[in-house]
């Protein structure tokens, strides 16, 4: 089946078996291997990409269902130089083996937008206050990304720094 997906700003038309997932389309057909496959079943978050701006597990997306959609991968976030989160992950050692890292960074990128949009989380004390990105809020919101090397302290430090910087920029 022919599918056209915009990946990192570029249109790609692929002829795919309907069984091909978005993750496999990226990795095996477009050779964008930055998105990782950790479980292939929505259980780890390694395959997280931005689909029309929102974070999703690309392993559970059939590529054919995303004709006309826009996908941003970890490679896309680095276009024109590494993104603030990518740099902060290095600076805070938010990685060890690095296998979960692209998923963490894509997830965090979208998560910060969710916070900005005021989405509550499971740990939010109230459903209608503006969200303050405390340790607990951040940890809950990032819990869809497993890291077996267990770099959560570094991951959280990196995201916190970028969130804080983003906030000061916004108020300037």
């Amino acid at each position, binding site marked *: 089946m022919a599918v056209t997906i915009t990946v990192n700003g570029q249109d790609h038309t692929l002829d795919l078996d309907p069984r091909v997932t978005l993750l*496999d389309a990226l990795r095996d057909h477009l050779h964008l291997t930055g998105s990782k*496959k*950790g479980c292939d079943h929505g259980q780890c978050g390694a395959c997280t990409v931005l689909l029309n701006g929102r974070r999703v597990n690309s392993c559970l997306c059939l590529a054919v269902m995303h004709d006309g959609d826009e996908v941003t991968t970890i490679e896309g976030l680095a276009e024109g130089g590494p993104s603030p989160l*990518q*740099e902060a992950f290095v600076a805070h*050692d938010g990685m060890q*083996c690095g*296998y979960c890292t692209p998923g963490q960074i894509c997830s965090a990128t979208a998560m910060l937008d969710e916070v900005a949009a005021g989405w509550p989380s499971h740990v939010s004390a109230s459903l209608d206050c503006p969200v303050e990105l405390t340790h607990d809020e951040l940890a809950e919101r990032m819990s869809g990304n497993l890291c077996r090397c267990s770099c959560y302290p570094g991951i959280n430090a990196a995201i916190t720094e970028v969130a804080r910087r983003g906030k000061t920029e916004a108020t300037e």
Partner: protein
Amino acid sequence: MTIEMKIDGPETVNRTDDMAQGVLGRDSARPDGLAKATGRATYAAEAHPEGMLHGVLRRAPGIGAVRCPNLEAVRAMPGVRAVLRDARMVRNAAQGMADEAPVQGVDEAAYVGQPIALVVAETFEQARHAAQRLEVAIERTDLPIDPDAVEPEVPEAKQSSQGDLDAAMRNAALTIDADYTTSSMNSAAMEPHAAVAEWDGTTLTLRGALQMLRFNRNELADSVGLSAEHVRILAPYVGGGFGSKLGISADCVAAALAAMELGQPVRVVQHRRNVFEVNTRRSETRQRIRLAADADGRLIGLGHEALVSNLPEETFAEPVVQASHFAYPGAARTLGIRIARIHRPAAGSVRAPGEAVGVTASEVAMDELAYAAGVDPVELRLRNIPEEDPERGVPFSSHRLKAALLDGAERFGWSGRPMAPRQRREGEWWIGTGMAAAFRVNMVVEAQARIRLHGAGAVVETDMTDIGTGSYAIFQQVAAELLGLPLAQTEVRLGDTALPPGSGSGGSVGAASTGTAVWLAAMELRRQIAARLGCDEAELTLKDGTATAGNTRQDLADILSGAELTGTGHVKPGDAAEKVRQATYGAHFAEVAVNDVTGEVRMRRMQGTFSAGRILNRRTARSQCHGGMIWGIGMALTETMTHDRRDGHVVNRDLAEYHVPVNADVPPLDVHLLEERDPWAGPMQAKGIGELGICGAAGAILNAIHHACGARLRDFPATPDRVLAALE
């Protein structure tokens, strides 16, 4: 030229601290970090050679003789190129450092989940579907799968006894005699095991997810019937291993066999469910711990006896009591390991084999002793620090447990803690604190590394892997420090068997062992530079690309004048290990909240202080400690592989049901690394740190649960149902 060194005795001159560049030990970023953060780092499955085919493993659904009745029909399915049922495929997951083929075969399934066929097709989707269609008929054999239901083996070499423990127990003022259990566990590295094999008629090139290439190469060669010279393995990036990638894996051997048969590159990636079944797991343990102490809590006797399991034919037995040999004093000592031969997937090394479960349980027993004695748990440990190895009578190479305990207690704010449990309540939550000591044996293994030095900088080369442990960062620092180069001019190439054989990553040996080889290679280059300058190596100061000797100062590039110098280092273990007891030490402190309604446990904070010789990179070392402590959280609270009581299969073989800690399970962690130089650890005086953080960590958490709510749990993990049962 090569410098060879055997670690036979203490290093009397500390050369490392003389160096001038000032990069070793620093808190510096991983050179591979940005490649990982931008998706450019490529892992095993990410090679895509022209014409690559896709292989999917099919598992045995039962134990017994295997037949595939519809094999021909599957062969005829769209896109299918082969259904491989080769007797050389891996049966029992390979053990680390085996250096030869693991137990092979596809006709008899020794455990449920064993790979018994590889289906190869043109696309992954075709291969997956065809593998699912492949019927597997099992002529079932009734073999034992429950470790508690068989008569265990009692290998003599694994039993040791000094004095009369029974008498000590009878005569002691205080005794503890209790059983502790830990669960069957999985490494669950985030990168599933994967291989891409290419065969050009003479050479097999394999991209693999492996930890110890110099062994893996021989294992693969032996498995497929090639000589090692015809095998090359590449693993520049490995997505975690934790023991599960020590030995050659089923996917590697199957991919190689298929590539050789079909003459086309073949990729095999383990499905996450395979990962839980076809690689080594951490054995479940049942541990009886006996402590005999005087009224002040000073140990006079100690017993630690464990039941572990493995498949028949496997020599590995989880070395549960490894640290009990030297951790605490006591003249009467009985230690032993018994092995239940059962048909669950093979057991093998998982992060800190032995101590991860053994120290964890014995630190709960020590907490129980502290309560029996009415002595503060930190004080109880301080009272029980042996002067020398209590069994062998040899000295410790260095021993900083006391410093770690005191430092940790101070940073955590331990003093003034009420001894009695159930003292602090916040709403539904009982709050409590607990602690544990950490012990982990240290070892050096043989390793080689080469450095090529040229005008623009240095290139470090070894087949050593970086599985997240920081090899790239550390070797860069070691070489840059000794050669006086900026980090940016020091490149590190890893994970290729065409390079000199390093130690491999496992047992925390990597940084110190291969790092020492890098150190020696750099020292060799320093000698060559000194020779060019006509001075003594010791007089040479190398810094920022310049060499200073006496009152002359010259650019390194000028000294080389276009030449490339090569130095190789080769380190081997000597008899240091016989002369001293060498280990790493630490202390864990944990604060937990236990929900009085639901039995849920939440971590509130955790502190770890560790001592492991020279710290080569504070940032990566800290990350390793975080990792260990969080594995401790998993062991304490969430992780357990459930084996079906009828056939031993792993029931929860995915990441939705096998619960590794998620971000929200982890509280703020504080790690402190003590300054230490261990002269018996070679010229760098550094020891392994990758595993110390897990040893005992889960014990601190269970001790904190006890302090919080009064429930003494002796079975890991403390899931809500277990805590609730204790609360009811």
